């Protein structure tokens, strides 16, 4: 049996160009970029080359690009780093985020709230509209940070980050955006959109795991989470992973260069998958189908069918997808994103997410449809 991977929103395989770019830094070019000698200079050159590349790709300046160890770390840094600053004019700081953020933003925000920071959540409707009136109201309070993701990982919805960024900038409030699922799928440039903080991770764009970037626009203050040797301008100290940074830079550059054609190709495959599933399973619901979406994700639900069992059945039939949200035990739990978009009435455990990628071919889509229909028919009450 050929196994088909349709879970690219969870992670992606390393591309050959990225592995090639990283290879020297896993081998003979092993130096610490902070060292004064030739090994150090070689490593520093590679690191700074990677930084310049990321900056150019995103429309940023190199000093604004900080390498971290992943998306969660960058998100946490953005939230904690802003919430922990003393509020100008005194009083308790506040933070604002959308109702559909990734756990890396949500949990950081909750933690701060437990420590006394005021937290405000902005509703998002199933068509992707964010409550902009609530945002404006929240901005009156001059929150330490507003966090709105660019593309939602569960349903693929594109959120109105440019609009939100304009409003935040007008009030002098920093906007953070988790762009982890957005880069390489929709245009993401910080010289076009006035975000103050932006998260990228390598492993969603065919780069290495445990690599990430936090863009911090010049003039945006940030308290660090880690303290140590001062690397990455003190924003993220610790000996840098040069190979990782080089790999991430290469992956990002390729993803953005290929974005337009790849987005068209993926969008076509995704629309085909969606249409075929709708045709064969009339009761199927597409979560977020009414919103602008990134081209690679389709999240569906079939009333009465247990999502976790469906994911398992598909796996046994050779098709890898994901459902809902996973908790530490590995069980599928209810999705806060679906609940926020559709309310608790929707079977939040019933979600099935297909996310396509570079290696996805039309025959993979066909097999996925057949496997899904087979499983649903077996699971449907007679």
């Amino acid at each position, binding site marked *: 049996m050929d196994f088909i991977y349709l879970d690219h929103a969870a992670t992606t395989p390393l591309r050959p160009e990225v592995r090639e770019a990283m290879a020297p830094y896993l081998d003979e070019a092993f130096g610490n970029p902070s060292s004064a000698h030739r090994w150090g200079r070689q490593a520093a050159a590679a690191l700074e080359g990677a930084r310049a590349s990321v900056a150019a790709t995103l429309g940023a300046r190199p000093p604004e690009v900080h390498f971290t160890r992943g998306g969660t770390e960058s998100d946490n840094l953005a939230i904690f780093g802003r919430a922990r600053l003393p509020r100008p004019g005194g009083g308790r700081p506040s933070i604002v985020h959308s109702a559909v953020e990734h756990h890396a933003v949500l949990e950081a925000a909750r933690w701060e709230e437990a420590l006394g920071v005021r937290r405000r959540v902005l509703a998002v409707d199933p068509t992707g509209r964010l409550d902009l009136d609530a945002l404006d109201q929240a901005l009156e309070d001059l929150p330490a940070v507003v966090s709105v993701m660019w593309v939602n990982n569960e349903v693929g919805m594109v959120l109105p980050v440019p609009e939100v960024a304009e409003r935040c900038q007008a009030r002098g409030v920093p906007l953070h955006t988790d762009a982890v699922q957005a880069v390489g799928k929709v245009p993401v440039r910080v010289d076009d959109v006035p975000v103050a903080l932006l998260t990228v991770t390598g492993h969603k764009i065919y780069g290495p795991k445990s690599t990430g970037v936090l863009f911090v626009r010049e003039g945006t203050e940030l308290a660090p989470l880690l303290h140590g040797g001062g690397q990455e301008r003190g924003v993220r100290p610790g000996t840098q992973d040069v190979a990782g940074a080089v790999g991430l830079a290469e992956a990002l550059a390729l993803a953005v260069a290929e974005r337009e054609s790849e987005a068209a190709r993926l969008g076509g495959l995704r629309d085909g998958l969606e249409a075929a599933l709708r045709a064969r399973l009339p009761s199927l619901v597409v979560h977020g189908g009414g919103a602008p979406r990134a081209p690679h994700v389709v999240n569906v639900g079939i009333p009465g069918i247990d999502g976790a069992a469906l994911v398992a*059945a598909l796996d046994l039939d050779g098709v890898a997808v994901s459902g809902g949200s996973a908790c*530490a*035990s*590995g069980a599928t739990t209810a999705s806060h994103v679906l609940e926020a978009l559709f309310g608790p009435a929707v079977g939040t455990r019933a979600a099935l997410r297909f996310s396509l990628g570079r290696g996805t071919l039309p025959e993979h889509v066909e097999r996925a449809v057949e496997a899904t229909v087979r499983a649903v028919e*077996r699971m449907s009450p007679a």
Partner: protein
Amino acid sequence: MSGGVDSSVAAALLVERGHDVVGVTMKTFCYSETPAHGRTCCGLDGINDARRVADRLGIAHFVFDVEEDFTRDVIDDFVAEYARGRTPNPCVRCNSNTKFRDLMRRGEDLGCDAIASGHYVRVRAEPEGTALLRGVDAGKDQAYFLWGLPKNLLPRLVFPLGGLTKSEVRRRARELGLVTADKPESQEICFVPTGDYRDLLDRRLPTRHPALEPGPIVTLDGAVLGEHSGYAGFTVGQRKGLGGGLPAAMYVVAIRPDVREVVVGPREALAVAAVRVAEPNWLARPPRPGDRVTVQCRHRARSAPAVVEAGVDGDLVLAFDDPMTAVAPGQSAVVFQEARVLGGGRIVATIGANVSASNR
């Protein structure tokens, strides 16, 4: 697959026999809420152990969240029984509901034909239907917990360990190099990992529920001997927790929830002549009044000869040849014919051999 040595070896034996096996661990409640999770089979460590064993055996493994159903079928019942002054048996409830019926449904979803577990019991195809029999290892036999299985599931259940002893199973586990070979047995209820169920009752019962409120400790004659701090802390046959200074050895004979009384008496008062069993579940043709059977009223207790009295449909009454000691309402009465489980049910009342005290 709970992550324990029994389910691990059961899976291994099935793989050895050439079956197409899928390992499933059921997450019965959110382990991150409890402080002492992970020591034995049902905590997060258990799930991870199950996953490692599945990987070692080369089989797929999934974790299914059954918290909602488990809470309704097992935990809510546990709390309600203590509130009624009875001693619940949550493992029986789990086996009767979550573990087999719900698991079978998921197995069917995955296209499976049968469900297997590491229980020490046997099934045998017979002309009149599949029989459920005790495991061969008398010290490990778990037939007592399975009286509530839906009868129609029996033909599709597989128990690889029923014909083995526990020491044979551990030996096989070591031979197979399973990480769980020397894991200690799980003794606690999976949703009460600390062993202190009072905290759970406290959280789930309404504030100031009588079961957790102080009340009198009384004798069979009605004399008040002292005070207890909540009848939910007592079970029939218990000797501890009654406070010092009691005349002679006193045992809990009954609990009267409506007046919050814990009734104590001498050992002779624990003798039970018969039990009344509610809504029995039958795994074979139900016995008729007058039939002779053997009955087990506690795990790790001998089963004793008894006669089925009137009332097989609805409440069942089983009369022992010789009085049985310390039978707690809420526990299961399981009816056997030699090694075969005929069925069983929840004990709702005991009829004392020496005294008239009974608890409904």
